[in-house]
């Protein structure tokens, strides 16, 4: 159990700077997810925490102790790799007990710990098998078992589910979360999948190009994204956006987009009349309906998934996605009117993409 502090952390690969002065804290027992597109520096940051990459600038502390110059093995961390990185010549039990063996721990203690971890992870029948005799999900569990057995201060996960098929990924996601709830070990988890981030995290750190875009709980990020990038990155399907000009008169406010489409705004929306803005609305905040302020569109594609129906709709020059709960008899080619949930509309500054708040 430990808290973590990142202070102005930088990383250079030669003359290329990949992490630009990152700082944030992770509380004891927290499940933090670093998320962002490929190349945003999230894995590099994790590897710096693990001691696998040198820290070019700033400090990383574990429990208040700066670990910049502390070797990986002395940081008391355990890491689960995307490729599992199991020792192929060792049995499952030996894989899990390797770190304790290196520390010359009491064999009885080692055996106890292995048995305990195997029980938690349902690996008891496989202890004498070799990694090559296991399925992907089982290998992933062994990798987790190897981490658990050490009882480290911090668990690090580097895209641990990327190599699993979709169904197994969902199952393992729940397993990892349940494991954290049970062990309460501080966890840092790296993924490019925002669904994983949303479903697992206590706290999400959204990164792009080596910088932090926003830190917050999953719902904070979803409801109050700090900028256009976070707004579009978090949430699936992604938020619909349209560029336009803000207009307001005595009665109402709206954004006029290309093709004369008027996207309605609540009366108290931020911004001046005539200002260029980016209008954002989540697919779930649109619904079929009429009214004076409804937005006209034409259905292009209907994608029923059972519980929900996704519509791809042409609105003016833009194509937007609408998610409807339940089913619909809307057909492709049909003209529809879309009602906007005004309280859930987002406005962004086109220069820099920062969220505009009233």
């Amino acid at each position, binding site marked *: 159990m430990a808290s973590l502090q990142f202070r102005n952390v930088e990383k250079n690969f030669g003359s290329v700077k990949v992490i630009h002065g990152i700082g944030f804290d992770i509380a004891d027992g927290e499940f933090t997810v670093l998320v962002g597109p490929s190349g945003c520096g999230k894995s590099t940051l994790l590897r710096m925490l*693990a*001691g*696998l990459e040198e820290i070019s600038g700033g400090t990383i502390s574990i429990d208040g102790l700066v670990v910049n110059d502390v*070797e*990986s*093995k002395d940081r008391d*961390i*355990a*890491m689960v*790799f995307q*490729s*599992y*990185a*199991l*020792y*192929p*010549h060792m049995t499952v039990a030996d894989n899990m007990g*390797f*770190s304790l063996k*290196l*520390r010359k721990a009491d064999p009885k203690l080692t055996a106890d710990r292995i048995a305990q971890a195997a029980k938690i992870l349902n690996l008891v029948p496989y202890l004498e098998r*070799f*990694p*090559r*005799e*296991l399925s*992907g999900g089982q*290998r992933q569990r062994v990798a987790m078992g*190897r981490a658990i057995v*050490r009882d480290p201060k911090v668990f690090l996960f580097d895209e641990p589910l990327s*190599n699993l098929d979709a169904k197994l990924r969902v199952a393992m996601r729940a397993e990892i979360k349940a494991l954290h709830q049970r062990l309460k070990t501080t966890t840092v988890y790296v993924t490019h999948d925002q669904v994983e981030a949303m479903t697992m995290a206590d706290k999400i750190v959204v990164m792009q190009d080596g910088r932090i875009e926003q830190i917050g709980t999953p719902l904070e990020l979803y409801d109050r994204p700090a900028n256009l990038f976070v707004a579009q990155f978090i949430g699936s399907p992604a938020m619909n956006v349209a560029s336009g000009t803000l207009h307001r008169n005595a009665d109402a406010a709206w954004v006029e987009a290309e093709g004369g489409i008027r996207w309605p705004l609540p009366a108290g929306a931020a911004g001046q009349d005539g200002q260029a803005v980016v209008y954002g609305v989540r697919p779930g905040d649109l619904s079929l309906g009429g009214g004076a302020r409804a937005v006209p569109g034409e259905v292009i594609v209907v994608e029923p998934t059972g519980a929900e129906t996704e519509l791809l709709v042409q609105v003016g020059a833009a194509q937007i996605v609408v998610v409807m709960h339940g089913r619909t008899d809307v057909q492709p080619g049909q003209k529809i009117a879309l009602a906007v949930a005004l309280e859930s509309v987002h406005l962004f500054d086109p220069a820099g993409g920062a969220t505009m708040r009233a």
Partner: protein
Amino acid sequence: MKLKWKAVATEAKLLLIGIPLLIWTLIPIYHLFLFAISGRDSATSGRLWPKEPTLQNFALVFGEKHFYLEHFWLQLWNSLLIAVSVGVLTLFVATTAAFSISRLKVKGGRTVMNLALFTYFIPAAFLAVPMYKTMGNYGLLNSQWALILAMVTIASPYCIWVLKQASDKLPWELDEAARIDGASPLQLFRLVYLPLMTPSLVAVGTYALLLAWNEYLYAFLLLSNDRSVTLAVALGNFLAADDSPWELLMATGLIYALPPAAIYYAFKRYMVGGLTAGAVKS
């Protein structure tokens, strides 16, 4: 049906290449065998099978009952001792070098490896005299160490290169996982690297061993005492006289050729990899 004819044609073409190649390879060996089981007078008779095949030659060899065979057992032992020493030493040098270059990424490691490989641009025969001189400087002439060290020198660059290539294929995450698990470089080497490299190690060790076993030039040059030379050199000495005992030379040669064949056969399965299956998802 047409497809079948095509398959037959392909097969025939392969046989057409394969059979001559097989004969080409086997004729010298058959010749060796033929001489070895022929009597002294009938050895060069030109028959495909001797009139009176005999194992007499082998009895003479094993009993050291000829001037040239006085030290047969000792020389065979020398060959074995030197070959095994070269194999073990080369393996040690090449494994540690490949580990440092490939896994520890020691600075300048690649340059050292390439420089070592560069020595192969110069034919070994050209290096024989400098090597002789060097061993003289070390005061090792006529010591079997001279030959052992020379052969290790010759075998190492290739072995380092082969092992380095094989090491590069090991997943890097294994090293990182081991480091996080608390392994020192030496523990990483012993507990993770060596077990995973076993197939390559066997292949490379066998190569170095056989290279030393079959070496003639350096053995001839660096060893001169009848009691310290290898059997390969002793075989060469058969030809010193005008009336060489060919049948004994061939019998000894046949015996000398057996251990390499046995080694190849024994370690055949190691030459194929597959041990790393299951380490990482690929």
